[in-house]
């Protein structure tokens, strides 16, 4: 699937994550800010990358601001942002 337009999902609330997706030329790039960057930064990036791969998204820049979301929350927010970004509605 191809991301057609910028999209976003999530909130800045504690335990949530705010995801912004932007069309990018051909590679996936992730910019992450997180209150648990030191202890969970790698894991959060891995969950985002896996979710994008599962949806065959390749052309995207991810900007994420994390307030301590758990893996399932991160996955749900990324999927929602993808769904919002791949349709032209």
């Amino acid at each position, binding site marked *: 699937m191809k991301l057609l337009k910028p999209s976003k999902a999530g909130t800045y609330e*504690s*335990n949530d994550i705010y995801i912004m997706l932007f069309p990018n030329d051909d590679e996936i790039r992730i910019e992450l800010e997180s*209150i*648990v960057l*030191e*202890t*969970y930064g*790698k894991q959060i990036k891995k969950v985002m990358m896996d979710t994008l791969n599962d949806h065959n998204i390749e052309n995207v820049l991810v900007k994420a601001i994390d307030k301590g*979301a*758990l893996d399932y929350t991160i996955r749900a927010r990324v999927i929602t942002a993808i769904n919002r970004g791949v349709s032209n509605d």
Partner: protein
Amino acid sequence: MMTIFGYKKNYQMYDPKKKYTDKHIRKHSKNNGSNDKYRKSIEDLLDELELKNGMTISFHHHLRNGDYILNRLMKEIAKRNIKDIRIFASSIFPCHEPLVEYIESGVVTQIIAAFISGPVAKTISQGKMEKVAIMHTHGGRARLVESGEVDIDVAFIAAPTCDKMGNITGSCGKSACGSLGYAVTDAHFAKCSVAITDHYVEHLGSVFIEGKYIDYIVEMESIGDSKGIVSGTTQITKNPIGLKIARLTSDVIYHSGYFKNGFSFQTGAGGTSLAVSYYVKQLMMKEKIKGSFASGGITGYLVDMLKDGLFEQLYDVQCFDLEAISSLRDNKNHIPISASKYANINDKCIINDLDFVILGATEIDLDFNVNVTTSSIGEIMGGSGGHSDTAYGANVTIIVSQLFNARIPVIKDKVLCKTTPGETVDVLVTERGIAVNPKRNDLIERFKKTNLPLKTINELKQISDSLVGIPDKIQFDEKIVGVVEYRDGSVIDFIHKKL
């Protein structure tokens, strides 16, 4: 044994099997203060005092995050080109940010305190202070002074009201803060004690610190910002998880075997702690149980329980809100106590009579050791305060915490910094279950007969790990930036510089 710059060479490591035996207590070293104590300004006073490089000056934290005194004094001292100052403050708060500059320039080379938060804590964690920070307990602070291990050159005492004799009370004045429990020992033992006040009166009826211990009195326009000194009314938490933990905690208290007439109780001022007070109050009324005393930092909730006859006395080292301040002034059963009477291992202290204490944790490990000194990434952000004192003294020490919050788990294999040793911690209450220290078989047997959600601490950790994952290891430098002293003066842990 390692040599640590700025720390004594003959230190002992903490050993749970050893009982502290050094009962070295000095007699009050004090002169009787002269008759002519009043000085026009801080500048005048400092001109007269023989300030020297390397001296130790003390402060206390009853004005909390509204304190003006420490910053004002340090500004004057720095102006006079004095270096290598050791600050012996009961606590350091975010309002003390100006200290950062003095630490970096070598005006201040060491801080000794029971609690350090905010920019100063960050600066110490970054390894910018010349000597090591020493983090003691509230009771340990009184012990350090009484034993002579810390010799205070000048004690600066925040005096919300002070009379011509130097008699002090915290109960009235525009910067009223209630009890002055941590300042008493300083006044008694410092080589020189200075009362700094913004309410200077002719004569004071009710006195907390006697004028005979005070050498100088100085007026300042304002000693503190009332908004930072007390919160208006402390509120119980609205968070349903916090409320669940509080309700479970009151169930633990109910079934512990210690909940009977004459029981005693201490809790903090955090939202969950206050909620515990709320549920315990309901329980006491329902079961018609009356307690003997509540102690520690006092809140309006405990004041209400005193008024309702649920407790006979409140022992108060520090008032957390306005209700506590007016109660301390008006109710003779609301009694101010010194930090030594509260928690000093060499004193006949109140905490040894405690049945229950409710405490928090940033981390707890599988051996029930608790960290309240550093954050989950190992930066200084607090300290024991009375944590390890009361955990030692109370019959049932209960740690209340969410199992995790914002992905930060509370249970770790090993705490990053040991503040309170596991053998003094009895129960952990979380929203997903209750873990009892295996050494408290008596409690485990009692709880098994109830419907309390009992789990082992390993089981709770597995639940937590399955949801948040295992955190990556935190990296530290070899350099030691802080020494954590247990209440008996032994070293219970070291704090390392962050990489």
